[in-house]
């Protein structure tokens, strides 16, 4: 059918007007609309017009199916509620009766008419107009088939924290191959830095390391640590990813992980990543003892050999000659069908809250610094001490909501800090017997065994002050405050200002999205919310998929959450991926744009309009082509083409022009 010839013989249309109980019928004269459609829209193809109390019920749907079969209906228009609710219901019903589902349309006369207007006569007239619009439009609907693309059974998981590891293991255990890419030298993520986890007080490393080892030795997992994704192209089922495997300067085939090179390296630097700036590491290092993989990494910018050609102690002492100063970055190309982003979070920078003195007052610590203090493998061997590394505190103040729930920094709640603060209180009491004060706004302890943990910490004698801390200062008001850090806070339950002298302050800092999350998102074609977290397809019903087919998210990358939730999301993302892999093919909605290459003049106006990179220019033919699997169906290029060479299925120009005509019938 040529684009410019309007349809002369109209297809047979069935119209169904729903009462929705009294939701529609109370404000719209449904029978009048039904009769009007039969009379006035007959020339537009309406051969039958019915009304029914609840069209979405099985009886209502059967009405449609019966008419399709008996009257040979070629189009169906239902005037009822919003397409976002029941479009699929009616399309499926039509399909059951043998009619292509895309020939059925649902127009809303409930949310858009009966629920929002007050004059019955006007509401009825508007319903007629909306119905007419859709009847005119539907004549131009074409039969569409969802696109089927084959799925590559390999999966890429970006991020080797607990969510990423969980996802990788689930998919690998099901028998499919996974590439697990991690930026740091070892997998484990933030969980590897913690000491104990709430509420069970499980040792974090003890529960994490078995998973890490499993992932590191699994035959179906290719572990790529000290690596980053450089570029992604393709579409769901068929992604081509380039990964840069950074040079470790250690030959992984020869290295036995004995650690002699680390021991002999003479150069120490502050470990900003794993030790949160509180401890040191060597220039050639493994981040922690249970690192997976066990191969160390050489920090080139700080290496004496690379800076001025001296040293090479590691090479001298390595028993297997595994040190290779000539090693170069490697680039790998992998093909995968689905990608799971489990890139985790960064912490809020407590230096920004100048009135809490972090960075200025030595004995103010962040939560991550405290985790390292309390961890037996940390810089103080698990002793909780002040900044001098020796003195044990006698009073500790723990401040909640630093950088969270705060209009000056981040508005959102970071979800885990209340529980984390309680855990710190418990650990401090257990290890040092110090007095502990907690300064909170609200106590958020919703999940299993969380509130019981709160009760336990209360019973242990921790003191809770409800108030947002105004200032942490070392300016003493008298001899009793000398040498201490003073927390100035309004105790809102008592209604008084209090100055509480403590030895150590722990700031429960909030979670923030990774500071390069936006760039990473752009690499994969997904977007971030205004707070910077990745956006899920539906906040309630679809938390692990994104608007981009084939890219999933899990763990803290989409928002602050605790370990059980991260694990659950990792497993959920894996399940979604497996569901796709097992179907061998994936179905894509057929709302796409296509270029009529005969009409395309090669002006390329459309080329830069696509954020999904679906539009490409074919040089030797000098025309533009659209990849239907990448195309998301927004229609911007359709509107932009000056030659009208691009048509958009589902929302074509004919359909919309017809709808405008119908809407303005009688005007």
């Amino acid at each position: 059918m040529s684009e410019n010839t309007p349809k002369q013989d109209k297809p047979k249309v069935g119209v169904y007007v729903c009462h929705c109980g009294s939701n529609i019928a109370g404000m719209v004269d449904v029978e009048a609309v039904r009769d009007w459609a039969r009379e006035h829209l007959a020339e537009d193809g309406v051969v039958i017009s019915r009304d029914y109390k609840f069209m979405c019920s099985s009886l209502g749907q059967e009405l449609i199916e019966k008419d399709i079969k008996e009257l040979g209906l070629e189009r169906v228009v239902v005037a009822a509620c919003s397409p976002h609710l029941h479009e699929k219901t009616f399309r499926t019903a039509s399909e059951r009766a043998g009619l292509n589902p895309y020939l059925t349309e649902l127009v809303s006369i409930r949310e858009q008419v009966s629920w929002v207007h007050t004059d019955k006569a006007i509401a009825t007239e508007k319903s007629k107009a909306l119905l007419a619009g859709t009847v005119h439009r539907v004549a131009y609907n074409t039969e569409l088939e969802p696109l089927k693309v084959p799925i590559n059974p390999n999966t890429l998981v970006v991020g080797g924290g607990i969510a990423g590891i969980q996802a990788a293991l689930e998919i690998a255990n099901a028998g499919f191959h996974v590439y697990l890419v991690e930026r740091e030298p070892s997998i484990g993520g933030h969980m590897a830095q913690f000491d104990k986890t709430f509420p069970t007080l499980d040792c974090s490393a003890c529960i994490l390391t078995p998973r890490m080892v499993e992932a590191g030795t699994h035959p179906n997992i290719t572990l790529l640590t000290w690596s980053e994704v450089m570029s992604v192209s393709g579409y769901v089922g068929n992604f081509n990813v380039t990964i840069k495997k950074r040079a470790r300067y250690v030959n992984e085939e020869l290295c036995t992980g004995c650690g002699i090179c680390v021991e002999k390296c003479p150069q120490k630097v502050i470990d900003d990543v794993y030790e949160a700036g509180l401890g040191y590491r060597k220039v050639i290092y493994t981040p922690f003892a249970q690192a997976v993989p066990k191969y160390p990494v050489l920090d080139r910018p700080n290496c004496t050999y690379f800076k001025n050609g001296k040293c090479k102690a590691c090479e001298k002492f390595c028993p297997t000659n595994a040190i290779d100063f000539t090693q170069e970055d490697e680039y790998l190309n992998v093909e995968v069908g689905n990608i799971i982003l489990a890139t985790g979070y960064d912490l809020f920078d407590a230096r920004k809250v100048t009135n809490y003195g972090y960075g200025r007052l030595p004995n103010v610590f962040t939560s991550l610094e405290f985790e390292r203090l309390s961890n037996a493998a940390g810089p103080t061997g698990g002793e909780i001490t002040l900044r001098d590394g020796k003195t044990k505190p006698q009073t500790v103040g723990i401040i909640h909501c630093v950088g969270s729930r705060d209009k000056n920094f981040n508005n959102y709640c970071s979800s885990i800090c209340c529980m984390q603060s309680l855990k710190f209180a418990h650990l401090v009491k257990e290890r040092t017997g110090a007095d502990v004060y907690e300064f909170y706004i609200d106590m958020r302890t919703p999940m299993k065994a969380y509130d019981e943990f709160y009760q336990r910490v209360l019973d242990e004698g921790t003191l809770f002050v409800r108030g947002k801390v105004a200032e942490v200062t070392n300016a003493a008001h008298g001899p009793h405050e000398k040498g201490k850090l003073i927390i100035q806070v309004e105790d809102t339950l008592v209604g008084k200002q209090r100055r509480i002298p403590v030895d150590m302050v722990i700031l429960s800092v909030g979670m923030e999205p990774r500071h390069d999350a936006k760039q990473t998102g752009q690499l994969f074609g997904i977007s971030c919310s205004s707070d910077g977290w990745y956006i899920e397809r539906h906040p309630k019903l679809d938390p692990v998929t994104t608007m981009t087919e084939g890219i999933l998210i899990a763990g803290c990358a989409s928002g602050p959450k605790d370990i059980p939730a991260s694990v659950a999301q990792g497993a959920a993302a894996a399940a979604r991926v497996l569901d796709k892999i097992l179907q061998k093919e994936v179905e894509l909605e057929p709302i796409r744009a296509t270029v009529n290459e005969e009409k395309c003049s090669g002006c390329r106006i459309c080329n830069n309009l696509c954020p999904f990179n679906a539009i490409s220019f074919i040089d030797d033919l000098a025309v533009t082509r659209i990849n239907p699997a990448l195309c998301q169906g927004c229609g911007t290029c359709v509107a932009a083409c000056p030659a009208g060479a691009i048509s958009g299925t589902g929302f074509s120009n004919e359909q919309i022009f017809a709808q405008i005509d119908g809407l303005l019938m009688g005007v």
Partner: protein
Amino acid sequence: MNKYLFYPGCSMEGSARAYYESIKAIQGPLAMELEEIDDWNCCGATEYLSINLIPAYSLIARNLALAAKQVNGANSVMAPCSACYLNLEKADHYMAERPALGEKVNEALAAGGLHYDPGSVQIRHLVDVIINDIGLEAVKTKVVRPLTGLRVAPYLGCMVPRPDYAKRWSDHEHPSELDDLMKALGAEVIEFPMKTACCGGHMTQIGPETAYELIRRLVAEAEEFQADIMVTMCPMCQMNLDAYQGETNRHFGTNYHMPIVFFTQLMAVAFGIDPRQAGFGLELVSAKDALARIGLKAPQPEKAAPPRKKPEGLPMPKPLPKKYASGQEVVMEE
């Protein structure tokens, strides 16, 4: 040559004479041209605004109107006194934010043949001008007598870093501008935790006990950190801490002897100007000992140097990179 319209304020001629003298002394070396606003009037300090807003703002706005008229090659008004500065800034800000107020104020000004459109002049504090317009590098080049060995406690007071309508300050609780300026003079600057805490203001007149306690806290803290001298940029702060230090001592039975001078006085001395010309000698708590530490006048018996911090224990986090309002990145010296 940086040119500014100068709003001295009433205290320059009275209690803050030292401020005025030292500003005049450093004006030349800093290449700062100051043209006093013709026929300026009192800004009303803090009292008037709590009595009746419209006449109060009109009083302040008259100065802005005069400045706007006098503009010739300079549209910045520089006020060294914190209260004057805040009042001018507030008037300009609220006349824009509340058009009804603006209208009434202009009605009042019209009676004197004047008019002020909010935003016509920029209002700057002297410290802001030195840091952002003149720049610390330029200040360093003028230092001929570095204040080496002098431990300085920088005290900004509360009225300038807050509310900061024009967003000129690096931080509102612990700004580093005055610290960096003193460091540029070669002084040893202590990390003074109460640098923006209240000095008591007019409580010395209204409720002296409160004022004495606030003064005591500041002076005691500076002493705790073994400061030799405190510097400030506000005449009220200087008067409270200096003139009332004796009464504070009597009230508490303490024996504090903490000199407090204006930052411009130290700048003048660092630039090689004679201390008397820099306004020294006008303060009640004598700065003799502090000056002696930098080799001026007869040497006094050495005070034991405070212990230096040896790097031991756990490493501290690195400070956050800073930028001043001028956009200039601050180079950390450690």
